[in-house]
């Protein structure tokens, strides 16, 4: 395997593996938010805001993975 192939493979792996954790996190957050809203619909607005924030912070992990993948693809020689 030459260096460029390894680079491409690493970029794919970084993004794919990084997305697993973020995906689980986002699923957990939104699932629990749905549970909370169905239990107390009058809190919908508050819960929604907290849910969006939680999703954003989970997503950050995937974004770090994406940064690594982009560096591997476009910057690293």
């Amino acid at each position: 395997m030459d260096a460029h192939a390894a680079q491409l493979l690493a970029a794919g792996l970084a993004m794919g593996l990084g997305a697993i954790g973020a995906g689980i996190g986002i699923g957990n957050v939104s699932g629990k938010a749905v549970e909370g809203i169905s239990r107390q619909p009058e809190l919908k607005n508050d819960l929604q805001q907290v849910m969006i924030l939680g999703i954003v912070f989970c997503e950050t992990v995937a974004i770090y993975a994406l940064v690594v993948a982009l560096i591997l693809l476009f910057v690293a020689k």
Partner: protein
Amino acid sequence: MHLPALGVLMGGIVPFFPEIKAPPVKAEPIFQVGPLVVTNSMLGSLLAFLIILLLIAAVSRRREERPGRVQAAVELFVGGLYNFSKASGGTVGTALFPLFAGLLLWLLVNNWIALIPGFGQVVVHHGAEAIPLFRAANADFNNTLALALMVFFLIHIFGVRNHGLAYFVEFINIPALFKGRPIDFVVGLFHTIGEFAKIISLSFRLFANIYGGEILIAVIIGLAGPVAVIFYGLEVVVVATIQAFIFGLLALIYISLVSEHADHPGEHGESGSHVPTEEHLPT
């Protein structure tokens, strides 16, 4: 018949559909004014400014006591933003409303005009190659980095304004060294790293989502033709909206967190209040 084949079939019906390519990571320069190289993403953001200015001019020129349909819609939108900012910004919610609404509106228009079909198909010819005249401003990392840096400095300016120089105790905790609590000093160093991670996460979140949307559209068009892109395009529109909203919301929340009046800004966590503090939020 599986879906991509159907898409190609339907795509074949639409004639003269221009070829859509994924934009390169770097924005391409269009022309140069002195030392300033004007890229297509800068032109895109100027277009967004122009659209916002025209909207504001059009709406504010004909203000009436009994609002018409357009005025009512705009009032509903701005009023909703105001209430939201007041509710989630804590003590400084109303003061931060212009920042929040401004960021949100600008990012929203920027993200949306880039999704209008034909936006990226206006080209200028530089020699042999054709360069798109406009590009989604947030698909250029320079733009999102500038916004993130602005928010970063605003956070710390507000922190110093509210707590004075004692604000920096949270990051470089020299008093803890004298009190014999070196752990607190190390924790402060981690907070410092966390602050700089805010720049990375804020800028890359916006950039990656918008740039990812551009690539997604190009890939789907290449795979399944222009009709299939409608379904994915809906998702891209939702993402563009949410990301604009989230950037403004995060700026609002970060700034409101450092503006909470605590007696000891370095010891948020021990004050016993259940107001979410800086320490409890990751970047």
